[in-house]
């Protein structure tokens, strides 16, 4: 028995040692040091609006979603604010949903910022907050997800989801014409179907294709994650043995779609991406995958939003426009990135 218990203690020591060793090893493995993606800022040019002016406190809130695009939004906003010596940047975590964001924002209001820049979880759900802040005399800059009530924001800056679909379809139609394909088989891998932005993208895509007399053969909805993209793409390939083109709404999800392409050895079609991630642009530039183009929905809008919020705070207009104040609505055009212009856009990739 004594022998037994000694064995036991030795075994425990071994197990304990192994556990501690593994723990130390693993803790070392969490490091993610890599050359960070450069944030998209606009350096302050001398003269005009860039001259340091009145001090502006900008409050900022964006969801903590697990997606490269949202991460880029936050990074860009922070970096752009850092580029101005007269801007103080206050950020609050938006939490997991609209209710949590509302709670976080009420603490932001009490700090009395000059301007609030806000990417809401859901524009409809946070409309009331926009109204409240505007009533309290704090201009609200809505980033990307619109408030239904025009009184709830001073400036709305967003991407063009419908336009993304239009751009993707337009590129495809050109390609079909060039290749002489008269009856193309087209697949679509959308993002989360419940979101309005996904529906707008799909509508733009379908409308534009319809004008050319084409239609989407099979449409699968993934979840903006690489693993769901891989799964849905595999299903799509299984359903349609021969494809001519695929539009994948999101480049992050596209990592999984491209993985599925490799795994199933399907090379007969070309693919158009969406959003404009750095990886996608590099792939397009290298031209060694089925990904031939991507249509942008650039997170650089966060940098622009901070610049414009500063101007609003200082009561200045955009120097290239005649108007003395910043306009109320800005919609970014969705641009098509191909091999020819990828180098130019690479700095805007996230």
């Amino acid at each position: 028995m004594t022998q037994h218990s000694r064995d036991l203690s030795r075994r425990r020591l071994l197990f304990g040692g192994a556990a501690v060793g593994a723990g130390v090893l693993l803790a070392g493995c969490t490091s993610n040091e890599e050359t960070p993606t450069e944030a998209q800022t606009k350096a302050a040019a001398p003269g005009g609006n860039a001259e340091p002016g009145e001090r502006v406190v900008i409050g900022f809130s964006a969801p903590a979603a697990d997606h490269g695009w949202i991460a880029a939004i936050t990074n860009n906003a922070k970096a752009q604010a850092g580029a101005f010596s007269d801007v103080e940047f206050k950020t609050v975590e938006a939490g997991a949903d609209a209710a949590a964001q509302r709670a976080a924002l009420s603490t932001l209001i009490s700090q009395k910022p000059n301007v609030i820049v806000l990417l809401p979880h859901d524009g409809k759900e946070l409309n009331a907050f926009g109204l409240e802040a505007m009533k309290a005399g704090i201009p609200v800059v809505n980033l990307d997800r619109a408030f239904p009530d025009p009184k709830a924001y001073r400036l709305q800056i967003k991407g063009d989801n419908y336009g993304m679909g239009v751009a993707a379809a337009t590129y495809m139609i050109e390609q079909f014409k060039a290749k002489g394909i008269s009856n193309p088989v087209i697949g679509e891998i959308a993002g989360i179907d419940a979101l309005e932005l996904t529906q707008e993208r799909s509508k733009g895509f379908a409308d534009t294709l319809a004008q050319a007399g084409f239609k989407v053969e099979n449409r699968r909805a993934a979840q903006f994650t690489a693993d769901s993209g891989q799964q849905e793409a595999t299903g799509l390939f299984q359903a349609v043995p021969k494809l001519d083109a695929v539009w994948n709404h999101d480049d992050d999800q596209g990592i999984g779609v491209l993985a599925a392409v490799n795994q199933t050895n399907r090379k007969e079609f070309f693919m158009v991406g969406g959003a404009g991630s750095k990886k996608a642009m590099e792939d397009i530039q290298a031209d060694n995958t089925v990904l031939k183009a991507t249509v942008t929905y650039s997170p650089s809008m966060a940098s622009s939003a901070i610049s414009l919020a500063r101007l609003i705070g200082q009561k200045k207009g955009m120097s290239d426009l005649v108007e003395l104040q910043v306009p109320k609505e800005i919609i970014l055009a969705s641009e098509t990135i191909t091999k020819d212009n990828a180098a130019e856009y690479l700095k805007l990739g996230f």
Partner: protein
Amino acid sequence: MSETLPTAAPDRAADLPAQSPPVDPAETAAAGEKVAHGGATGRRLSWWSGDNGEGARRNLGLIGVLLVLVVIGAITRSDLYSNPDWVWDNTLTILKLASVVGVVTVGMTFVIIGGGIDLSVGAIVALAGVWCTTVATQNFGAGGMIFTALTVGLAVGIVNGVLISYGRLVPFIATLAMLVAARGLAAEISDKQTQISDNQFINGIASNSLLGIPLLVYILAAVVAAGWVLLNRTTFGRRTVAVGGNPEAARLAGINVKRHTLMLYGLSGLCCGIAAVMLTAQANSAQAAMANLYELDAIAAAIIGGTLLSGGRGTIIGSLLGVIIFSTITNLFAINGLSTEAQNMVKGGIIVAAVLVQQVQFRSFTQFLGRNRLTT
């Protein structure tokens, strides 16, 4: 000191092989259950009407459902099904689709049979996947990545187990907390980015085949086989059934229930680690939001496979069939170009139907037949 007493400590006795004089407690518990169920009739029943055949009958039913699904597919897309190459390829695709959730479900089946529930499996897969694709881990190569994924999965599972068995937390709460925390940690480590796996060996796990069958399918088969042996042919498996069936009786019979529960959650975590490697290979990347809602897929598969949610009963083969049925439905909807919403509604319906069937039970149906002299 108990060591000096002639009678060994209870949990020691349980360590002895089953044929030793102190009867294996799990055997007794299982036998007791047998008496409670079918013993009243007093005669040995054949497999289609006896209690021993319950699992086999249920699995036959699941295979029937599977066949119906395939027939529906063959009717709706007869153009595709007329090509034998496509059919074989599609079968492998369904199995590949089932592989990741299948591995998770094996671990989940053990936990549920043992009377618990593990809501954190999807989050553990994400955490292990993210951890094994950090730049620092990828520097160690494929071996380092696999080691990291397995160790992280096992460690998180053990934390779950300690909280539940020694911290006396309800499994639902402990693993729910772990679900939130593990995804949070994964988001923290990955900085909310999608981490791309550049390791060709890892990515090759999803793209390579051996003798025409994808490696992922071999991994699933190996895990299922190991799970089947563990559950049906070892003391560990017997104890799992005993602990889940009646923890107090199991404790009185000399099983160290706490330690056993701890090991069950560790096992589930380890399965998640394996699944994380497979999913990372499939997606060539990992991120904190991956393996979304896998806990529900795994629980649903185990339940339609005949695992009793209150513990004490379940089969690995049933769970596997459950997973394959779900991935066949997903495939069926994809090849017909139907929306994900419709697919989710059908899946929900199937889960409800499976639980309803569990409540009715085949036994009462055969009794009904017997009463009406439709069978012997």
